[in-house]
């Protein structure tokens, strides 16, 4: 029975050939390491967010009068509602962490260099869309935390002269964050961003498959990719088969990711839900010591330290733009960061500053 169904499909779409050419004969570098699985984990994290998000939509009410209660209802009354909500909340934080780690590891291994500049840019855009997802989703529970964190973020464009105020009003749908803002952010979160993310993920995966996975720069001579004058697929003929070798490794790592997700959901359920996240939004009372999520603490702390709003926000925009376009500045052939002490120092100092500002923001 199973064989006849399989044969029926095989005749129509040539599945065997597809599996052979795209999975078994597709090879990854022999010295590939565990950090190369981060992209797949990020993809798995996106899928978990999409699936749990669909489930939450069944009970969530996108209205300022009902949003908070509907989320409380999901948490306290809907059978296993707490599980899907917590998976969504914890998953969003872990997803950001995985995307950050993926970007950092790609940077550390010099995999952004020619001919993979576009892959890096697509990855960077994905990171920004991921953060946009987090921002737009943050308001939806309509809690004190979500309301005031969104108020701060929606005010950021006002730092820019002429169009800043208009952009901020456009985002909020008025002078203040209100029910209109909730509807806008809901639309952005569930309808506007998903197709953008899917498109960029598609382009990113296409670019990775088209150019071939880059080799880690450690222990093997560089293939002189910088001298390319025409397109060349890096096929790694001496490498390992994508399936089963690398696929198994990726799935093992996703299992570790899931273990971490369920560990936090089970044993640390309030890790990302402080008290203000369980208090309904009060548009007339800003809570003391409001803090954004951990991944925005560094920019938030930077805004506190730089007295000029325009300067503070512009500096952050410039830093993000420089990070995204880094492959176009760094055109040196050497990919091994260990052989480039200056760049290694800049990399380590930047990460240290980000961590320091995050901790400072957390405890200030």
């Amino acid at each position, binding site marked *: 029975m199973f064989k006849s169904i399989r044969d029926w499909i095989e005749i129509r779409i040539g599945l065997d050939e597809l599996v052979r050419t795209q999975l078994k004969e597709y090879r990854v570098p022999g010295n590939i390491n565990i950090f190369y699985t981060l992209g797949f984990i990020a993809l798995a994290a996106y899928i978990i967010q999409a699936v749990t998000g669909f489930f939450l939509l069944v009970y969530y009410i996108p209205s300022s009068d009902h949003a908070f209660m509907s989320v409380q209802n999901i948490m306290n009354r809907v059978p296993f509602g707490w599980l899907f909500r917590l998976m969504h909340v914890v998953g969003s934080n872990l997803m950001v962490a995985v995307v950050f780690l993926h970007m950092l590891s790609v940077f550390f291994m010099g995999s952004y260099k020619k001919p993979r500049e576009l892959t890096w840019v697509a990855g960077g855009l994905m990171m920004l869309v991921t953060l946009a997802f987090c921002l737009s989703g943050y308001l939806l529970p309509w809690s004190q935390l979500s309301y*005031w964190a969104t*108020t*701060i973020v*929606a*005010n*950021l464009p*006002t730092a820019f002269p002429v169009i800043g105020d*208009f952009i901020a*009003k*456009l985002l*909020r*749908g*008025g*002078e*203040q*964050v*209100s029910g*209109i803002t909730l509807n806008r952010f809901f639309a952005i979160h569930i309808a506007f961003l998903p197709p953008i993310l899917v498109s960029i993920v598609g382009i990113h995966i296409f670019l990775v498959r088209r150019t071939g996975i880059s080799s880690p720069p450690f222990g093997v001579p560089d293939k002189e990719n910088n001298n390319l004058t025409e397109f060349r697929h890096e096929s790694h003929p001496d490498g390992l088969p994508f399936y089963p070798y690398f696929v198994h490794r990726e799935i093992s790592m996703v299992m570790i990711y899931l273990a971490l997700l369920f560990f936090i959901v089970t044993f640390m359920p309030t890790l990302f839900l402080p008290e203000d996240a369980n208090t309904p939004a009060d*548009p*007339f*009372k*800003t*809570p*003391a*010591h*409001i803090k954004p999520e951990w991944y925005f603490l560094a920019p938030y702390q930077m*805004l*506190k330290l*730089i*007295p*000029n*709003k*325009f300067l*503070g926000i512009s500096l952050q925009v410039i830093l993000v733009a420089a990070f995204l376009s880094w492959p176009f500045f760094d055109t040196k052939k050497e990919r091994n960061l260990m052989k480039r002490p200056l760049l290694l120092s800049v990399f380590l100092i930047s990460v240290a500053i980000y961590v320091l500002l995050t901790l400072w923001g957390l405890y200030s």
Partner: protein
Amino acid sequence: MDRRTFLNTLLSFLGATALFSFGYPLLRFLAPPGSGAETHKLTVNKSDILPGESKSILVGSIPAIIINRADKGFIALSKVCTHLGCLVEYDKDKKRLQCPCHAGLFDLEGNVISGPPPKSLRKFPVKVEGDAVIIG
């Protein structure tokens, strides 16, 4: 002009027209209505706010505060911090307004004393007529 150039120009024109026909309504569709603060008038009882005390109010859709300053009389200020939009709180002992988010400080005229806010708090016109304080 040959036939191909003409068609390309025509298509570009039609494309631009289609884009504008969609883009302008979209911009208007998304653009928010005004706050209503400009035309909004609000009356509070003078006796409700003793000297040194304050009362939170809503001017249009803007959260605001009216303060009865012991020395200079009533003033109505927007509570929206000009830095990133958190609501300032009135500290009657220190006679100033403080933002809980980034520690911006304002005096009772709404002027910035310290911190990152780039400009003063928005002021609303105040008129005292008998026992009524009219804001707006």
